[in-house]
């Protein structure tokens, strides 16, 4: 018996619908017999009639509706068909949901699921990683689960949180990542996880890049290097303490993210480590991100646009030499 990352997301939603009558799922193609573009809600409309609802292609109004429902006692889960399309709902997410508690003292408990990141052949509009944009604005919690277990427990936690949560689920992990069974509990949001212990170099990353970083650690182990991999789990709030403790052990920091290079989660980690833990560093911190271009369609281009074990390992080796 094994369960995939995608099945864990579906199971978490089934549990939420079963356990909490305030929960409903709202998004394009999530309902009926279809169950979503990636089948993350397959069968749920039949099991929970009237609570898994198809919507028009209206990202702004989908999120606006979720905000209104949340203000009046519901716990909506919005599925964006692709993270990329959430740009059409930025106003509702950033300006409405993100400001609401601070302005009115009334929180907005919505969860927005973003099928994120690149898969082969998906091109510029079906591959984006949006976490840095949402983390930049105040008022939102941004989750980036990297494991089947986190995909499950963090989605359940997201719905329980009284504030808006942007839950970035990685499409590449949907089918590639499997676990033996679902956990009954996990680390809380806001806590990073040491995915692999090491003493020579810390790789701080999140989402699908955790798997790439673990592959790099395995490869470099054969050369005698012990790489520590920190899985942030939530990019906001950012668990600076766990990152600093790791850098204190290794003296070297490499940040890896799949999103574009200008600013963002990896830059934030480096900014915090250099300002709060400069004395811990034996070498200048480095990072690996996607290229500063739109995301290419052809696999030949995509394979060098996105960070991967090869490009991360090359950067890690350089950093270990310093």
């Amino acid at each position, binding site marked *: 018996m094994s369960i995939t990352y995608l099945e864990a997301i579906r199971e978490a939603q089934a549990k939420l619908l079963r356990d909490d009558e*305030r929960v*409903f799922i709202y998004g394009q193609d999530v309902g009926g017999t279809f169950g979503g573009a990636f089948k993350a809600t397959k069968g749920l409309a039949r099991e929970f009639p009237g609570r898994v609802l198809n*919507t*028009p292609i*209206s*990202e*702004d*109004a*989908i*999120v*606006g*509706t*979720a*905000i*209104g*429902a*949340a*203000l*009046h*006692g*519901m716990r*909506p889960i919005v599925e964006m068909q692709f993270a990329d399309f959430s740009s059409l709902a930025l*106003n*509702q997410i950033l*300006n*409405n949901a*993100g*400001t*609401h*508690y*601070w*302005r*009115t*003292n*009334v*929180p907005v408990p919505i969860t927005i699921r973003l099928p994120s990141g690149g898969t082969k052949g998906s091109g510029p509009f079906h591959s984006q990683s949006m976490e840095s944009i949402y983390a930049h604005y*105040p*008022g*939102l*919690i941004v989750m980036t689960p990297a494991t089947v277990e986190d995909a499950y427990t963090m989605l359940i936690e997201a719905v329980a*949180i*009284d*504030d808006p949560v942007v839950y970035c689920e990685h499409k590449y992990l949907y089918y590639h990542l499997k676990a033996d069974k679902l956990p009954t509990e996990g680390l*809380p*949001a*806001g806590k990073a996880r040491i995915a692999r212990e090491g003493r020579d170099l810390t790789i701080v990353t999140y989402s699908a890049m955790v798997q790439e970083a673990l592959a790099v650690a395995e490869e470099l182990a054969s050369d005698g290097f012990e790489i520590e991999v920190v899985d942030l789990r*939530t990019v*906001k*709030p*950012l668990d*600076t303490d766990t990152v600093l403790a790791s850098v204190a052990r290794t003296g070297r920091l490499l940040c890896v993210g799949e999103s574009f290079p200008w600013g963002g989660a990896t830059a*934030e980690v480096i900014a915090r480590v250099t*300002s709060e833990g400069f004395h811990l560093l034996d070498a200048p911190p480095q990072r690996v991100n996607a290229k500063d271009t739109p995301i290419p369609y052809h696999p030949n281009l995509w394979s060098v646009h996105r960070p991967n074990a090869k490009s991360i390992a090359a950067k890690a080796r350089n950093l270990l030499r310093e």
Partner: protein
Amino acid sequence: MLQTAQRSSETIKTKAVPHERFLEAFRWMLLARTFEEKLVSLYRGGLITGGVYIGKGQEAVSVACGLFLQKGDIFAPLIRDQAGRSAFGEPLVDVARTYLGSRQGPMRGRDGNIHRGLPRQGQLAMISHLGAMVSVTVGALMAKRFKGEKNFIGLSCIGEGGMQTGSFHEGMNLAAVEQVPLVIVATNNHYAYSTPNEREFACAELVDRAKGYGFEGYNLDGTDLSACLDVIGSAVKRARAGRPPQLLVASTLRLSGHGEHDDASYVTDEIKREPFAQDCLKRADKLIVDLNLVDAKRLQGWRDDAAAQVDQAITTAQKEAAPDANEDWCAISTRALVDQAQ
């Protein structure tokens, strides 16, 4: 089933006898006008930080929006809805607190002027991005339906400027798809800030869009209080009775600048002579005198009462403390998840 939107030529005419809630509505209009005149003088005296945005000329439409709503309904007012907000139950002192930045106000000095609300009491807090509150109203109504509540409706206000946003369009369409009991009251005050109608839209009648959305649509004369009460009151009844969502388009002229920083010098003399340029409060006042609905002494008493209420609200808010920069600044309610960004 859906009724074709009525043409402007079929605009509902004022009845000879004013609406039964005419005088009650008039008093809310008077209070709103008196209060906003006071805000303007405070602004000119440098006592209000930021902008002042008033609803002069739109009080008749606005009051009718607030007046027919009940406890349990959802109201999403916009920037020119002081009369409607008051009629719905917003305490005047909270308005003063928001404009003057009192920490005891609903926005505690964090947001100002018209960006205020009491979401738990059904009055949504608008954001400046127009059209956004339509779908939020839809969501609130869906929540009430999920929870099994009965007899509720939502009313969301917009202007002809906001009607041109994508957000408005998405919200309207979704409202009709979800068949929520919603009334949209659009006030065409003929200018989006300085931009006149001909650069805002090209359709003959905005109300014609009702049919395209799956709404029932009606035009109304926004300068005629009795017509506003009739048309908006009837739409509220239809929504409560389970009819499709309702779109009402009122015609007025904004009798102020966009905000008090704006002298509105772009408003043409020609447009000021149009019937829709009449002052709804003066029209209502004249009707009261012409039909001798209230004697002069009582009318003066109402004016004095409005002035006293305004003074009390302003005086109270002025005595209250401003927000403290050392207070809790968290943008989220879950304290354990506040990021430590510097």
